[in-house]
């Protein structure tokens, strides 16, 4: 939280004094996330902090206000560079737009590890991420099975431009294309529960025969649950990620289940990959941090419960 305040304060001031403030004994990694609008990022942060303690390093964990503020994230990157970190963990809001800011790290031989969302160049030594296409395809499979493999479906995707948004939409659409009796009638975009709920209720009105909806992140899934509750609809819903409200919705039967990534694992992977790289280890280009499909029945399974967050 201190770091968040720092980022909200005047960035110039930060870059002026921070060189001194971080010049402690422990190596310092700058970890830059996509924002704080979902509990997902708190879980990533927890993983990063746990791993930092284990590796004996200090980290900062910062991000822009919302997941649309690419320009703000570039400013945070620039400010982080001024702090002279020995490593950078970075969850890109855009796969290309931030190349220039990233390049200063590469030029200074500071290793970069991408996490959550990758970038479209080879500057990062590795990318710690969920295979979003495969994860959304699994959601599509579960949805298809639940509606008897035929009928109309729709999707509420959290955004149009990031790698996770694009990947989950593709995974869902590609898998549904294999189910010849299923038709995707609409795809909408919202990243906030209230707005997603209004979107989904309009879709339900537009398509009275709609049988299933996929919601691609926490905000969209909670919106889906609100829409189900407010309309009393019996449409089958499959969500993504967790968070208390989404877990409640699954327990209440509003959603049949959700895909969870491993956010704690993503945070751990970002920090441990930097430590390994600095020790001279070679890493795979992509480290799959895994995903699970969870329902009311396996939610308390220790393996699943460990990666779900409130």
């Amino acid at each position, binding site marked *: *939280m201190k770091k968040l305040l720092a980022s909200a304060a005047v960035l110039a001031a930060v870059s002026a004094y921070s060189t001194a403030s971080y010049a402690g004994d422990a190596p310092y990694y700058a970890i830059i996330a996509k924002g704080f609008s979902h509990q997902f990022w708190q879980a990533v942060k927890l993983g990063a902090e746990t791993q930092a303690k284990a590796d004996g390093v200090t980290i900062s964990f910062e991000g822009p206000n919302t997941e649309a503020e690419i320009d703000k994230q570039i400013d945070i990157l620039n400010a982080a560079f001024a702090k002279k970190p020995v490593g950078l963990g970075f969850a890109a809001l855009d796969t290309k737009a931030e190349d220039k800011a990233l390049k200063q790290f590469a030029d200074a031989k500071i290793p970069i590890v991408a996490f959550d969302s990758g970038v479209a160049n080879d500057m990062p030594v590795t990318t710690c991420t969920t295979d979003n296409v495969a994860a959304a395809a699994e959601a599509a499979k579960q949805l298809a099975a639940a509606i008897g493999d035929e009928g109309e479906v729709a999707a509420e995707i959290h955004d149009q431009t990031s790698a996770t948004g694009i990947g989950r939409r593709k995974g869902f659409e590609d898998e549904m294309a294999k189910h010849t009796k299923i038709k995707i009638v609409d795809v909408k975009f919202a990243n906030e529960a209230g707005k997603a709920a209004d979107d989904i209720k309009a879709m339900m*009105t537009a398509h009275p025969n709609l049988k299933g909806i996929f919601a691609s992140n926490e905000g969209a899934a909670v919106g889906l649950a609100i829409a189900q509750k407010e309309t009393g609809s019996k449409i089958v819903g499959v969500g993504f990620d967790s968070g208390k409200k989404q877990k409640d919705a699954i327990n209440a039967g509003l959603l049949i289940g959700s895909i969870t990534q491993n956010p704690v694992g993503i945070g751990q992977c970002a920090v441990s990959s930097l430590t390994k790289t600095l020790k001279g280890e070679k890493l795979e280009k992509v480290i799959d941090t895994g995903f699970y499909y969870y329902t009311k029945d396996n939610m308390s399974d220790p393996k699943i419960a460990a990666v779900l967050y409130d």
Partner: protein
Amino acid sequence: MTATTIAETESAKSTFFTVATLQKAVAFAVLLLLIAFFSFTSPVFLSWGNAINIMTATSVNAVLGIACTLVIISAGIDLSVGTLMTFCAIMAGILSVNLGLPLYIGIPGALLTGAAVGVCSGSLIAYLKIPPFIVTLGFMRALYGLNLVMTNAKPIYFDDQPNYSLISPDSSISLLIPGLGIPNAVFVMLIVAVLAAIILNRTILGRFVFALGSNEEAVRLSGVNVNKWKVAIYALSGMICGVGGLLISSRLGSAQPAIGMGYELDAIAATVIGGTSLTGGRGTILGTVIGAFIISVLSNGLTVLSVADQWKFVATGVILVTAVYIDMRLKKRA
């Protein structure tokens, strides 16, 4: 106030009042046209269920729009309504969940918080003469940060307060008339609108809202304590943001600390589309409610027609600019 200035303000108000009525009529006609258009192009748009969807989607924006309207008529501006809404929602959460106090403390607490923040921003504007745009821009950002600090960036869930859902998603009227299904949020919006309209048109505070917006200097010269009234206007606006905070947190069953930024632009859009002049002195509550309905009918209608999401923003943008153009034309004629 001397007799001359009263006469002046009165005459100014009555001329503008007709323009406002005319523009309200234009906004209402646009709303009807949109509804007619979507009803003809989509077989499912015109249904009771969808009407409820639209009303629900309008409620928060209309309430924030009303908060903006009061300030904008007085020739001010409020960019902090969105994050203030969230701030009040969090205060309701802290009082009634974290501290476990009953809702009859938590709810007024949230409203008073809104009013208190309004007193702060209003005082900076009135006494220190900092432009309202700057003060409320600062408040928008500062409150966003405080929202995250106070909650440690974690939502506050109202699970321990089951009655909290009575504010927005529950439908009390359905107990009287089964199947009607209008959520309480819609009635809260209507109550806020009626009260705000009464304050604006029937009380001394309302008179000063218009007077400050038309000619602040004249009011000041007539010996009125302008600053005091300005603070009161921002306090009232802040309290209405508190109602918005109660509505959204009740619907989401939680106070979500990261939301709010961007809501001010929708609220200002509703205000302007509804015919409130950004230069002050003119505007109505009903116009703003119609403006908020225009925005949500557009959004819902285009979704029902399966038009790609991006065009929603294009359409609201076009309507906004058109509304301001009409506003300017009408003003010239008056």
